[in-house]
């Protein structure tokens, strides 16, 4: 059964039309005056000066986690590049000098233009070697070649940039507790 939608007739003052127009303009002008009187209430984010607050688990540019000796945790297993729907990760493996570890990446490149920031690489990684928590979400440039980031750039991050109470960042080797891990490595309790 069809639903009948009531169409109320306009009152005399509404059908005059101009009054309603000016009521609309008064609403807009009211907002403008209110904002001028109270500039701190502005909704606008003054972007370059004022940075947006991103959550800690916001998926942004990648980084590679490190071992206590500063090497990448990556064992070149190709799990991330296999899981990647955009195929933006290219890895070339080589033999690792560490006898406990079979392989390491000779080349680890991510094409950020191809990347769709889905986070599947982080999910797939068995070593917690790749994370997407750098908070660098504004990636702009004028050449496509500049968007390909290599292993050195992925490993170039500072533990001080990540909050000390963030266990995901700091308890893993490479964080601010790197020194403890290195001591454990030397004393032989680290395996």
């Amino acid at each position, binding site marked *: 059964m069809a639903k009948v939608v009531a169409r109320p007739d306009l009152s005399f003052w509404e059908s005059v039309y101009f009054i309603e127009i000016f009521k609309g303009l008064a609403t807009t002008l009211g907002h403008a005056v209110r904002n001028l009187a109270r500039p701190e209430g502005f909704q*606008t984010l003054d*972007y*370059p000066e004022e940075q947006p607050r991103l959550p800690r688990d916001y998926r942004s540019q990648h980084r590679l986690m490190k071992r206590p000796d500063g090497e990448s945790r990556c064992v070149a297993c190709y799990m991330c590049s296999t899981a990647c729907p955009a195929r933006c990760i290219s890895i070339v493996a080589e033999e690792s000098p560490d006898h406990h570890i079979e392989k390491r990446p000779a080349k680890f490149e991510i094409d950020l233009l191809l990347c*769709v920031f889905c986070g599947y690489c982080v999910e797939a990684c068995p070593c917690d070697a790749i994370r997407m928590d750098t908070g660098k979400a*504004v990636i*702009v*440039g*004028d050449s*496509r070649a500049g968007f390909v980031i290599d292993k050195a750039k992925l490993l170039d991050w500072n533990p001080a940039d990540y909050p000390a109470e963030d266990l995901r960042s700091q308890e893993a080797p490479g964080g601010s507790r790197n020194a403890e891990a290195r001591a454990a490595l030397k004393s032989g309790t680290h395996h």
Partner: protein
Amino acid sequence: MTFKPVPAAVPEVSLGDAFVTTRADAVVNWARRNSLWPFPFGTACCAIEFMGTVSSMFDLSRFGAELVRFSPRQADLLLIAGTVTYKQAPILRRIYDQMLEPKWVIAAGACATSGGFYDCYCTVPGIDEIIPVDIYIAGCPPRPEAFIEAVYQLQQKIGTESVAARKAVGA
């Protein structure tokens, strides 16, 4: 305000204080970069983010680029936000050709810049296959701040251009 002493050999000195001298490039580039009129070629979700960029929260008009035009004749900034298929490519090329010089192009998001995960028979792997691109934005979709950053970087780029030199299409 103090001015640096100008060598007497400079002819402008003889004009006195009544004139302000500048280069034509500086004036024209100032006008061009502060009044970009974008044509949003929005074919997918990146266009939704661009709507946010021109809205009050991010307010692209702070950079003079909020006057969105849907006629290529009136626009000088082509903003490709979304997937461009091979069927859509001739349309995009025609819109680019219809725009008047000077014109600039921003490619936003994974699809427009590189094809993204559409590694298939129907998607253009990056619109720089068919038109020249000035600024690329990574992201799927990029945040509104990235659009602002792209407009800002394009403004810097326009500032380095010369009025006399014609922009070579396809360069």
